[in-house]
């Protein structure tokens, strides 16, 4: 381990991903059909939609936790399988209660039977702002600290693609804003694909937003908010975009409800 590696604990490659003709079905109900999108290398992409549109299931499929259905094709931009190229972060911190913070950060090595790189784990914990809590058990940490450790664990896995399933929604508003800023900083060189139901969060963090509605084949062009992330929550332009997205999401629901009635 050289000093350069310590200062730059990120994968050497940047890698985007393509999802083509995605199909998701829950029993007979088709949630998504023929949905295609791409996440550019090194960018932050959001899948935005209310609960039940299948966005978490889609993310789990990309993570390799669920077998792809039917015509669904998931590829890294270099044409290879995504397997072993993604790190996964969920809404719950998923810290193991019997391991200390630093052992949780190095969980991947432990699970693969490799020697854990303690120096690098400590360095990443420092970057996440919780170095002094390295030996604490998860039960001794606050909700914000726990999610910081979970973020550090995600970084520790040197994977070019990071999949996040509503990683900040269990936090209070202030802690959430801090964690969002930290995530943007620490994940700058990774390709991030985040699922969220919060339009405001998507507008703060994402380079590209795909809105999922009750429409099983979303065809609308993705939203590309202007300016660098994390965006200022008080920016009027952000407020305007927020309003238009909310209209789109609630309109979609109204239409679907009317159709079923």
């Amino acid at each position, binding site marked *: 381990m050289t000093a350069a590696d310590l200062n730059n604990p990120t994968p050497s490659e940047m890698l985007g991903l393509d999802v083509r003709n995605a199909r998701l079905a829950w029993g007979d109900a088709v949630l998504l059909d023929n949905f295609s999108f791409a996440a550019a290398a090194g960018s932050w992409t959001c899948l935005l939609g209310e609960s039940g549109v299948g966005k978490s299931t889609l993310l789990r499929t990309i993570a390799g936790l669920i077998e792809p259905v039917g015509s669904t094709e998931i590829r890294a931009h270099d044409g290879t399988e995504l397997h072993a190229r993604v790190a996964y972060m969920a809404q719950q911190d*998923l810290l*193991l209660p019997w391991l200390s913070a630093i052992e949780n950060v190095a969980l991947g090595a432990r*699970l693969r039977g490799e020697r854990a790189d303690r120096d690098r784990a400590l360095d990443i914990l420092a970057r996440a702002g919780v170095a002094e809590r390295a030996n604490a058990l998860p039960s001794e940490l606050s909700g914000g600290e726990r999610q910081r450790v979970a973020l550090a664990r995600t970084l520790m*896995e040197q994977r070019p693609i990071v999949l996040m399933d509503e990683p900040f929604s269990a936090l209070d508003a202030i802690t959430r804003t801090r964690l969002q800023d930290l995530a943007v900083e620490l994940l700058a060189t990774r390709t991030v694909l985040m699922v969220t139901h919060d339009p405001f969060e998507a507008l703060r963090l994402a380079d590209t937003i795909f809105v999922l509605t009750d429409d099983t084949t979303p065809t609308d062009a993705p939203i590309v908010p202007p300016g660098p992330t994390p965006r200022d929550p008080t920016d009027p332009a952000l407020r305007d975009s927020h309003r238009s997205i909310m209209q789109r999401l609630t309109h979609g629901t109204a239409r679907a409800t009317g159709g079923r009635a």
Partner: protein
Amino acid sequence: MTYLRPLIVFVGILAAWQAIVSVLAIAPFILPSPLAVIDVAIERADTIAGHALVTLSEILLGLLFGTLLGTVSALIMAYFRSARAWVLPVLVVSQAVPVFALAPVLVLWFGYGIAPKVAMATLIIYFPVTAAFYDGLRRTEPGWIDLARTMGASKAAILRQIRIPAALPAFASGLRVAAAVAPIGAVVGEWVGSSAGLGYYMLLMNGRVQTDAMFAALLVLALLAVTIYFIIDAALRRLVSWQADMDPASLT
């Protein structure tokens, strides 16, 4: 203080016992006073200690084999989906047939020595350990397993690093129950047929109407059982020290 409390309760029971005997003037061959019992216990300390050692070995060996067998069964059921259907009936039958009914058969097969008592204790312990541990292994937080899979963990690594540690609190509950019921297996075995052990000694003294000696053996048996329970409980607390103690009904 926490370890003093059981002692206070114990002394309290002895005092109440003495009071009942004194006030109601009960005949000593029905209920001897605790002082008489302690006298006999000291007088025959060597004899009782010899029998206690036999019973203690039976209980400890039963705990060892029952726990090993239960742990292995639970692991097999948790790891091999197809094995579940085979092990589960064995588990249920082991509990459905009363151990008391099996005692004569076990004595017939294994003789009057220590073996049938160990078998009885093993049988009685097997179910709580297996059921509790298997239940714990089944209820692993699914998010932990998802996370481990994205990290490239093998099925065996997930079992060893996540599912087993996560199931330890449940395993501990099962083992506590086992520690409490293990003496039942040993003593019932001794009643059915034996030439040594506290259960045998109690029957012998009962036949000779030496009620005080019988109670002395009972007292030693109770102390033995309680000591085993507390030692196992303390060991289990260390094992799952990361788990917040949220059990207000805890004995200590």
